[in-house]
């Protein structure tokens, strides 16, 4: 999988591309954390999932981990454009209760 990002004003958008499973979660986590640590002026993070083709519960752990880290900095998190299969995994874990959908 790959992660791309852009910053518009105080909003960081992270584009997750490909398949997110146990094998790729660590690399994605480290890459995202490095961006978050560097961009200390952001107040909103959007996880843009339209190009994520597969995600299992490892992805839930990864998203919630970033949420917890960003919450300490009062950065709000959102999820945008998940495909139907990924929506099903996210809903089952009730993730929208903490990371709302845009």
């Amino acid at each position, binding site marked *: 999988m790959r992660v791309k990002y852009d910053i518009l004003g105080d909003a960081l958008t992270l584009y997750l591309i490909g398949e997110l*499973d146990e094998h790729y979660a660590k690399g994605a986590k480290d890459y995202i954390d490095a961006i978050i640590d560097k961009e200390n002026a952001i107040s909103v993070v959007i996880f843009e999932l339209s190009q994520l083709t*597969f995600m299992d*519960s490892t992805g839930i752990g*990864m998203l919630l981990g970033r949420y917890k880290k960003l919450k300490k900095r009062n950065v709000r998190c959102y999820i945008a454009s998940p495909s*139907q*299969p990924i929506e*099903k995994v996210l809903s*089952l874990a009730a993730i929208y209760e903490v990371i709302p959908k845009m």
Partner: protein
Amino acid sequence: MEKMYLKFNASSKNESFARTCVSAFILPLNPSVEELSDIKTAVSEAVTNAVVHAYPKNKENSEIIIECFVENNTLHIKITDFGQGIENVENALEPFFTTREEDERAGMGFTIMRTFMDTLSVESVPQQGTIVNMSKLLKAG
């Protein structure tokens, strides 16, 4: 009866290989897009559990076996490992239960398997391994 047997080592890079093989096996049965993604996700969860929990160290001689067969349009999947086993299966089946919270694990693996498949059963013997059986009726087939 259509059958498949797949044996591979417990490496995280094989999670993708495993779910792709099971997908390819059921493709001739014309599953719906939703059925296919449900099955891929359930297989990924079971294999991830084996990679992460059954063989936490020494993955050198680790093995995972996936057996599938289809009978009356129902896909049966059996996933076996010979790892350290689950101490308390009842706890492991609870949503959000994890022994590895520090690793940012969601504890949703078995919940996803149970929700996305029609049946789920888990047998485990400490120090001997775990067998996960799942099945799902393919309605489109």
